């Protein structure tokens, strides 16, 4: 519907604020790359001709088409000299799908539509193409509308996910929004909210950390006894120690209780913790911490403290 192969019965679709029904449909389609599950490479054309079809109609020179084809084949990891003059039937399913993607990108469209592009591939290959897709996605910096029936694929590949049900958009959000705050029971069932622990891979560190607003940052000069008091009152296991300008480390309540001299300052007992990036996956963070034997990590975006990440907190939130 976005490329007007089908016109809407009601409602409207806008691209960058322009209603698509006001754009010439041929112009619109030339500006939207399109990839479908069946791939749809033209069997009577070589890879070069398939990719170069629209440029040829647009009157590009032979050399320019050839150069563009080579560039795109390289982008999708197919050596141009080997693949350029092959026919689609001489390619494997995965290779065909890459050519399909290359063809969709040929006019450098600002928008890409992908309709279950990996649906017909076996799980291993699908996984591999998804990884490549993520890399290509970063490279080309285009808006991609990606339709899938596989919620995990959506979590893996999508920045924003729209759940459609019976012709309506039920919820739009990140993986975190959908998993932690599903809009209705249908969405909850779809994303498997009741099995949230399964989603460690789909959630980022930032999604399930204890944010800085919910934790205490204590001055390094605080005495151990008052720190114990503050932390027990607030019900906190961990506190961040700061000297006012920069983070010194963290202290854990059990460690503080073990120290005999309660008059010492916490600054001398602060331990430097593992630092996590906010956009890493929760799963890799937990495996990293397990390997190092850490029970608590700081989430930092550069110099800025965003929160604390503890496996305990993850468990509490997800189960």
């Amino acid at each position: 519907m976005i490329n007007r192969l089908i016109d809407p019965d009601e409602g409207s679709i806008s691209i960058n604020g322009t209603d698509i029904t006001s754009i010439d449909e041929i112009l619109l389609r030339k500006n939207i790359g399109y990839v479908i599950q069946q791939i749809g490479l033209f069997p009577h054309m070589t890879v070069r001709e398939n990719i170069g079809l629209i440029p040829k109609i647009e009157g590009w020179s032979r050399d320019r088409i050839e150069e563009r084809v080579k560039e795109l084949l390289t982008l999708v990891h197919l050596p141009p000299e080997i693949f350029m003059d092959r026919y689609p039937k001489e390619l494997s399913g995965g290779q065909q799908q890459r050519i399909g993607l290359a063809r969709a990108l040929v006019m450098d469209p600002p928008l890409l539509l992908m309709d279950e592009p990996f649906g017909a591939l076996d799980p291993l290959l699908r996984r591999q193409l998804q990884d490549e897709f993520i890399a290509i996605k970063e490279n080309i910096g285009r808006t991609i509308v990606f339709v899938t029936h596989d919620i995990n694929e959506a979590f893996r590949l999508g920045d924003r996910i729209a759940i459609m049900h019976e012709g309506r958009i039920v919820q739009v959000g990140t993986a975190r929004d959908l998993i932690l705050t599903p809009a209705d029971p249908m969405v909850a069932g779809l994303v498997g909210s009741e099995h949230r622990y399964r989603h460690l891979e789909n959630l980022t560190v930032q999604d399930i950390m204890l944010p800085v607003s919910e934790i205490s940052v204590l001055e390094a000069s605080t005495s151990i006894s008052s720190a114990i008091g503050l932390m027990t009152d607030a019900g906190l296991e961990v506190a961040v120690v700061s000297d006012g300008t920069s983070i010194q480390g963290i202290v854990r309540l059990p460690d503080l209780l073990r120290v005999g001299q309660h008059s010492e300052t916490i600054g001398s007992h602060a331990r430097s913790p593992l630092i996590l990036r906010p956009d890493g996956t929760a799963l890799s963070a937990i495996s990293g911490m397990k390997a190092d034997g850490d029970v608590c990590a700081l989430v930092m975006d550069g110099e800025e403290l965003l929160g604390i990440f503890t496996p305990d907190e993850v468990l509490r939130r997800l189960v």
Partner: protein
Amino acid sequence: MIDEIQTVWIRYNLTERTIEHLQIFTIALLLAIAIGVATGLLLYRRRRYSPPVFSTLNAVQTFPDIALLILLIPLAGIGTVPTIIACVLYSILPIARNTYTGLISVSPELLEVGRAMGLVERDILIKIRFPLAFPMIAGGIRIAIVFTMGIVTLGGIFGAGGLGAPLQTGINLMRSDIIFVAGIWVGLLAVILDGIAGGIEAELKRRFGSW
């Protein structure tokens, strides 16, 4: 044996007759291809006319070829022209029908992708539908080749020249040797032409066929 064949061959000018035969055949076939493909294309553009047109062509097809040649006598006399007309009338159907079928039976995904890429209908017809219909069209032409070969021979009996003429002589003189030589030669020619057409068709299928 070989001597006898040679005698008949030279005596009845079979080399010239063969050339004459192939000339009529070629003209008839080219006309049939042009008209047949054009008819198939027109019917593809105006699909609702296809059932009546194909019914009519089917009716022509069921008409015995001798009867058709006789019916053409008051309109076109005898000789080359009515023979070519009869060939074309018989050959339009297989070519037109295969062209039409080839054009409409392109897989919907390919058409969807073509449209979504921003191809206009004319581009889709020229760059996608036609090439993908080539093997099918070639199949129709191959059938037409066999028809045309038979009718050109028959036309020769009705004064069109070609290899039908010596056959006619053989029948008149009750000379089975002439009938044998000319008849087997016509049959062989038909097989050879059909073989060539089959080769072309297979190559087109390999090149343009879906997989």
